[in-house]
């Protein structure tokens, strides 16, 4: 095996217990039989992820993307199976750990500490964060005086300066204006170029297509497929088109198949090429 596996998931399952009330929940905690449902968020996910790739996690709401991301981040624990993570992980969370009463600069220190940076590491990235956040003279003002855009820019700037081996991005990279989003994306690319692994959860297919090497498509906690982004994303988009047209009972019965949608997308692509070629021919012959 030549490739360097950084995250290995094996038969990963995650079940959430839903109880009918507090009483049932406490009964279950005490190990007594209790009324409740089990909601399966992940259902047997087995996949190796290679170091240095940007992996997209695609899927509808409730498909288990975020659960998988949180398990890899070590925030929540799987119910069954193994998730072997061989490197430091950090989850990008722009609005977490920001303290309204502290100044921007103090927030940099506070949040970096939460994320596990040492004093020396913080000193090293401080200026670069301030630069990145573009909050100007506000950096020494309390955070409560910030506009919401400034706030998330600062939070974001801090998050992307924590330097883990694996970065998990589970929120839109669309804080601030277009220029700032662009800056965030290019920062991610820098990340990858330095050999880091990124897991990227988003609902924006174009972002995934533009940015990810490979995409994992999840549906109801199962892996539908894992493939290069330029075939996976369009196939997934095909599926979402179908899905929006479906009624609830149809949706419940549905188990999407990657091969089917890939075929459809490739067919369309071939047709499009054919049309293009025909158009070009027609043009050249006229």
């Amino acid at each position, binding site marked *: 095996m030549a490739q360097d596996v950084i995250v290995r998931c094996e038969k990963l399952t995650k079940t*959430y217990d839903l109880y009918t009330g*507090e009483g049932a*929940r*406490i009964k279950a*905690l005490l190990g007594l039989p209790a009324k409740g449902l089990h909601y399966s968020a992940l259902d047997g996910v087995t996949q190796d992820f290679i170091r240095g790739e940007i992996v997209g996690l695609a899927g509808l709401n409730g498909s288990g993307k975020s659960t998988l991301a949180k398990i890899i*981040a*070590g*925030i*929540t*624990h799987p119910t069954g199976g193994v998730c072997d993570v061989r490197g430091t*992980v*950090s*989850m990008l*969370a722009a609005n*977490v*750990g920001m*303290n*309204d*009463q*502290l100044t921007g600069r*103090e927030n940099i*220190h*506070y949040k970096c*500490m*939460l*994320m*596990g940076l040492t*004093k020396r590491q913080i000193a090293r990235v401080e200026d670069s964060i301030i630069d990145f956040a573009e909050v100007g003279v506000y950096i020494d003002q*309390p955070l409560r005086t910030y506009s919401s855009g400034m706030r998330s820019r600062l939070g974001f700037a801090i998050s992307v300066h924590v330097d883990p081996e694996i970065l998990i991005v589970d929120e839109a990279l669309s804080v601030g204006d277009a220029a700032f989003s662009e800056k965030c994306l290019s920062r991610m690319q820098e990340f990858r170029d330095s050999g880091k692994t990124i897991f990227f959860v988003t609902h924006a297919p174009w972002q995934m297509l533009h940015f990810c090497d490979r995409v994992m498509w999840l549906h109801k906690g199962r892996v539908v497929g894992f493939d290069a982004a330029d075939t996976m994303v369009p196939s997934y988009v095909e599926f979402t088109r179908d899905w929006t047209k479906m009624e609830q009972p149809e949706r419940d019965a549905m188990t999407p198949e990657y091969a089917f949608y890939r075929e459809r997308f490739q067919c369309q692509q071939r047709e499009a090429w054919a049309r293009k070629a025909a158009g070009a021919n027609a043009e050249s012959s006229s």
Partner: protein
Amino acid sequence: MKATLTVLREIVTHLPRTIRLALYENRSRRSQLLLGRIWDFLNPLFQILIYWFVFSVGLKTETRNGFPYAIWLMCGMMPWLAMNASSVNAANAIQANAHILKNVSIPVTIMPMKAIAKAYYEHLWTMGILIVTLLCTGVYPTWHWLEVFYYLLASWLFLTGFGLITSSLSAVYRDFFEFLNPIMRLLFYISSVVWPLESLPENLQIIMFLNPFAYIVEGYRSCLLYGEGFWLSWQQGLYFWVLTALLLVLGSMLHMRLRRRFIDQL
């Protein structure tokens, strides 16, 4: 036993980070106040005034060796306030930091430990006033004063064990936290803080013996005022340490058992 080692190792490794986080949070609280740190002094001072008025002026409470009630009260009140704040805030710590715990991979034990560190940071300041007051009122320093460090360490370890249990339980059942408030109120009155438990009948003295909070409160007094070594009450000391060890073992077992559930249920 394995759980205890895991938890203790986690606490010790992350202690510097815990303390620095606590400092920043205290700073954030202070920055909202015009008087800032002065409140760290004023709050205990107001409480001392109130209890002094009720118990000394009103109820004419007598203290051991005839020390002025206000001085006697102060020596007990300062450690009590630190322990009380630690207990309540540590119990609430996992809930209060749910937002962080759900989004950042950070050891859960940092949260209760941070609450204790915050309270003890303030305690260092109030200890400052206590020492100044003692010197001004003619209580002269002895070598016994250094034993305060023993009681600091003892209370810190005890509160760690206690905090592990209360925070874990309050994170999974909220009712437990509501229950803790009346318990702390009760403990306040039976910990010899505002009136000497020595005035209880002989057969009720056991309350004082069994109450770990009373051990610390009386301990501060015995080293600062009475000039007695901590080894003199060795039976109670032994009991205290056995209890602390027990709380640490039980607390870490409980914590490790419940910690997988915290995140999903917060």
